């Protein structure tokens, strides 16, 4: 318990550092969002409007330190400012819309990729030199070596454009009403097949190879031999003895991947015009939407920290040696 609190404390500290960096970094860059917005209207705004804009975006002449504390207070209240690109929507709301789709898209992809890759790794190691082991790891590694955007575009071209099996973009079609009804859910699933599928195919190999190699070395350990000699059913030897021990390094990787889900699906979302976080980030950069960028970075950072905290908890549960060393 004390360990968990200690970890929590560490993550809070890390979050504070991240928030601080997040505040200072954009302020080191030249230009400001009000000027950018002002320029957008190509001189159609009066100079007084400029001052009003500056005020809206919180650009004051106050000392940096005061600004910093104001910022901290706002972040704490969940007020991340107002988006420039989606003016006048508040950043939190804009991110919220994108976040749902990204969490759904990338989350599904990472979980499927991890589960399928790990199970294939277990299979390949258990029947070493068998059919699965001979063909699947090299194929997965080969596919994983292609640039992701290229794979995604080929998939989009072949299955979306040429064969027309799947839609070309967006999260759902204009013809369905969002809500908890079958048509909407089916349509969302249909739109998700290509983006999720390409991410799974591109990242599967990593999980597979990690798991296979760890598993092969664990299978050579005496405790696995002992489990076999004890006359345990093969399933139990493979899963309870070998796979569970081999899983520990993968779990750490899984946590990292979960954290990067929020920022990492950028390419997928651009290729498939998916209205998620990555797509928003590109919009934010294009329109110099600092509040939105800052907000997205903040969410990504917090997500990575949160995922790591969860991994700490899971490892604690999986590995008694960690439990021991911390109590």
């Amino acid at each position, binding site marked *: 318990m004390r360990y968990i609190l200690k970890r929590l404390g560490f993550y809070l500290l890390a979050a504070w550092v991240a928030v601080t960096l997040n505040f200072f970094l954009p302020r080191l860059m030249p230009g400001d969002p009000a000027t950018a917005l002002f320029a957008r209207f190509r001189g159609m705004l009066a100079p007084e409007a400029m001052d009003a804009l500056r005020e809206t975006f919180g650009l004051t002449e106050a000392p940096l330190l005061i600004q910093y504390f104001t910022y901290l207070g706002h972040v704490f209240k969940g007020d991340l400012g107002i988006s420039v690109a989606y003016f006048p929507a508040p950043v939190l709301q804009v991110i919220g819309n994108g976040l749902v789709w990204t969490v759904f898209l990338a989350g599904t992809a990472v979980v499927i990729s991890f589960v399928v890759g790990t199970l294939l790794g277990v299979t390949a190691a258990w029947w*070493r030199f068998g059919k699965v082991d001979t063909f699947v790891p090299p194929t997965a590694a080969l596919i994983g070596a292609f640039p992701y955007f290229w794979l995604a575009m080929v998939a989009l071209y072949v299955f979306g454009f040429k064969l027309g099996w799947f839609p070309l973009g967006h999260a759902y079609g204009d013809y369905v009403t969002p809500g908890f009804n079958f048509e909407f859910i089916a349509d969302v699933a249909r739109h998700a097949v290509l983006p999720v599928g390409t991410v799974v195919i591109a990242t599967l190999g990593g999980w597979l190879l990690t798991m296979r190699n760890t598993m092969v070395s664990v*299978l*050579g*350990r*005496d*405790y696995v*031999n*002992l*489990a*076999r*000699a*004890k*006359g*345990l*059913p*093969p399933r*139990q030897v493979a899963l*309870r*003895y070998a796979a*569970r*021990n081999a899983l520990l390094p993968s779990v750490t990787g899984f946590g990292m991947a979960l954290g990067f889900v929020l920022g990492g699906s950028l390419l997928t979302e651009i290729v498939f015009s998916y209205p998620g976080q990555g797509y928003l980030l590109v919009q934010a950069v294009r329109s110099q939407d600092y509040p939105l960028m800052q907000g997205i970075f903040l969410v990504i950072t917090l997500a990575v920290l949160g995922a790591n905290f969860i991994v700490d908890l899971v490892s604690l549960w*999986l*590995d*008694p*040696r960690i439990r*021991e060393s911390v109590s």
Partner: protein
Amino acid sequence: MPEPIIEIRDLCVDYVTDEGPVRAIDRLNLVVERGEVLGIAGESGSGKTTLAKALLRILPPPAVITGGEVLFKGRDILSMDDEELRRMRWREISMVFQSAMDALNPVISVVGQITDTLLAHDECSAEEARARAGKLLDLVGIPRERLDSFAHQLSGGMRQRVGIAIALAMRPSVVILDEPTTALDVIVEREILERIRELQREFGFAVIFITHDLARMLQVSDRVAIFYAARLAEVGPAAELRRAPRHPYTEGLLQAFPSVHPGARTPRSIPGQPASLLNPPSGCRFHPRCARAIEICPKEEPGPTEIGPGHVAACHLAK
């Protein structure tokens, strides 16, 4: 009249390597009798551990059993199907592994590693299994509070005791001890060996005791088999082997250990290097290191020669 429980006939085990097969056990014939302690000694790489794993058929690839048979109570272990084999394992033959550090699963508690064995072989409830696990710890002198401990929380000696408790879980008729005390200090080693001896008398299982510590083995065993370079050099009653070894290699091994008696001879080592299995010497594999080698030794492999009841040596001089 001793009654054989395991009969090993012409057993061959090969390791498949890039340079071709390497024979780790070469046409081994050996009998284990009911309730005895059979010691197996030999240098590293002479095939001791390979034999232990072959008996349970848990040899990891690239090791392959290439011939012979292993009769357990008359049934050939090598031709059993998976399910038969699974039921034979542990119920009939169990094993204590060499390394106390690595033989326990680091993420499963002691009780978990005992009860899974019980549940794999017997229909019993979880509480029943736990109670039986507690009794097994009593047998090896570990307090029951340790049931929920993990391997890293136990000392080396305790881990090896847990290994013995697991080995006794199904009351097998044969327990293989593969260098069970190598990683332990002499005091703990002595305690553990004594405990095994007591348990063996109590339950009447046979023990196959593998070690490179010949002096210790001669104290503990009823009969001793000496391996050299994948072959059986000599086998016989422990007392007889100590008093009158007939294979020069056995003799060399006996002289290599210091004696505690005053005025005893100084230990002498066997000259030369252990034989390479990749390219073994012709004829008798021990001839390049043998002080008493004669003309025939490099030319012809010595067959087993019976010297006395149960005493066999593979040496041209023993005839």
